């Protein structure tokens, strides 16, 4: 399934790339693309794992860029 998130206050382009890379490595994530410009993350994940994956992504984002807030859209 496809999910979209907004990454509010994503201020550094390098971090966007890092987040993208890290999220790709989460188990159950098939595809991840972060656009620094539109502050948007689009992921393709396995069904039923939505909650678990979202929790992990939140943790990752906080770790890589503490000022950025992840919001589902």
């Amino acid at each position, binding site marked *: 399934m496809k999910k979209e998130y907004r990454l509010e206050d994503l*201020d*550094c*382009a*390098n971090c966007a*790339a890092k987040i*993208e*890379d890290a999220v790709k490595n989460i188990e159950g994530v098939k595809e991840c*693309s*972060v*656009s*620094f*410009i*539109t*502050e*948007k993350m*689009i992921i393709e994940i396995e069904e039923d794992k939505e909650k678990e994956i979202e929790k992990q992504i939140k943790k990752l984002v906080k*770790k*890589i860029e*503490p000022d950025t807030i992840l919001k589902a859209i």
Partner: protein
Amino acid sequence: MKKRLIKIVISAIIFLIAICIGKFNFINLDENILSIIQIVLYVLSYLIVGFEIVKKAVINIFHGELFDENFLMSIATIGAFAIQEFPEAVAVMLFYQVGEYFQSYAVKKSRKSIASLMDIRPDYANLKVNGNIEKKSPEEVKIGDTIVIKPGEKVPLDGVVIDGNSMLDTSALTGESVPREIKVNDKILSGCINVNGVLEVKVEKEFGESTVSKILDLVENATNKKAKTENFITKFSKYYTPIVVFLALLIAFIPPMVTKTDMLEWVYRALTFLVVSCPCALVISVPLSFFSGIGAASKKGILVKGSNYLELLSKTEIAVFDKTGTLTEGVFEVQKIANEKEITKEELLELAAYCESYSNHPISSSIQKAYGKEIDKNRIEDSKEFSGKGIISKIDNKEIACGNIKLMETIGLKNINQVDEIGTAVYVAIGKQYAGYILISDKIKEDSRKAIQELKKVGIQKTVMLTGDNKDVAEKVNQELKLDEVYSELLPVDKVNKLEELLKNKNEDTKLAFIGDGINDAPVLARADIGIAMGGLGSDAAIEAADIVIMTDEPSKIATAIKISRKTLKIVYQNISFALIVKIGVLILSAFGLASMWAAVFADVGVTVLAVLNSFRALKQN
């Protein structure tokens, strides 16, 4: 944002004071006291502007983020303090922050300018309920509801006009500045602006399915489809930072051990390395350029579905066109009525319309359409269709024959000049006397010829036309348009095969674009390197199938799109090479002790700023 700016300014002022008192020593202080005051001021200035960074660096170390830019900057500046290069330490942090500030300003600005470019999202819909009007959000309106659109308002949902007429400004969708007329029973698309009249519209699609939502979604997600160049840079930067840091370590320790020279000098050089170790300029300017390019294109009514497609488009050297509906209008119309002396044009058309009134052939319907009046069936006594030839009817007691040259020969007219024009000629005879002909054809779009010329001008190597039409028609169309190759009488399957053949025979590095109307050429659109759909406005199929959608009916927009893509890619390459050359240059110079930390700050911040500014140029397209 504002707080950051204030910090930078205060810190800069303190920094300047510290430098000045060192230079001029206004109040004749003792050297030692003076230098202590100076150091205090430097540290103060540093903390104001750099504390955030150091704090983040410390936190990130605990997160295991070692090559994070905050960390690198902290090390470089604290290191500079340690070897007593105070002004450098402060300057590096100060300029780094200035750069960051500018960068986030620039990004915010470009986010905004693209948003305003795509400012077509309607805020509300005037829903009509029992004669009253209620303001609702467009999401709440359902199919079948009636909405009212007042002058100056955006059309919130797709539908059909049931009352009123007006002019419609479609420029936000198509880049076309001339307003379009709209009246009862016309389809109306969301995202347009109603110019003067009040319209009542029956909603046909929910907001999520409406044109405006689709387009916004498409443009917003375009930067998520990344170009190869972009992915390459991301990968490159992943290695760049660790390598530079590693080199810095080598420089700090190896040469002093080998040559037994002053270690401080080498540490200074190593710290200079750290300052240029951030790949920011590259990482930020590449997506920014693509985004600007996509924005510029959408302003011209060209929707690019991803950065990757913009990149592919710039490498296009073969343009393959579908004929009907792309280069031609796709509607069959009476183009010409050639009457003999004994009869007027109107009479000829009237007779032909009556003669063919019982036929449901497309030719007949276009003649009926041109005639445009009701047929009085009492005037027709008899009507007989001759398959593959035409029709002979008896009207007002006269025998009228309408058909091709074979029909004329059947009734004994042998010396008629065959018409040598694009399209199908319907010859008309009245009582075995030749009366003239009516030419019906699919009109070539006004813009098509210019489109092909423009493509050649921008350096497209080969233009090809594919059509299911017969050879004569295809050749005649091409006499006017002058494409390089024409393949006619192709079934839909043949079109795919022909495309495969063209793909196989071309050079690996060059790309092939297929331009169609998205109606029955979806497989070909999908198979080409880049599928471009024409006249996408309102056609879901076209928006779905293509990589690039031209919202208007003008094929000349393809050359515009190619120009935009080339300019964008040029800017991308400029930025990459500029950033790399400066950074590597500074690395080499500082390794030999020829570049100071000041030069390194420029290589880092200055290059980023210049690259960001340069990428804005992609927004401006002529």
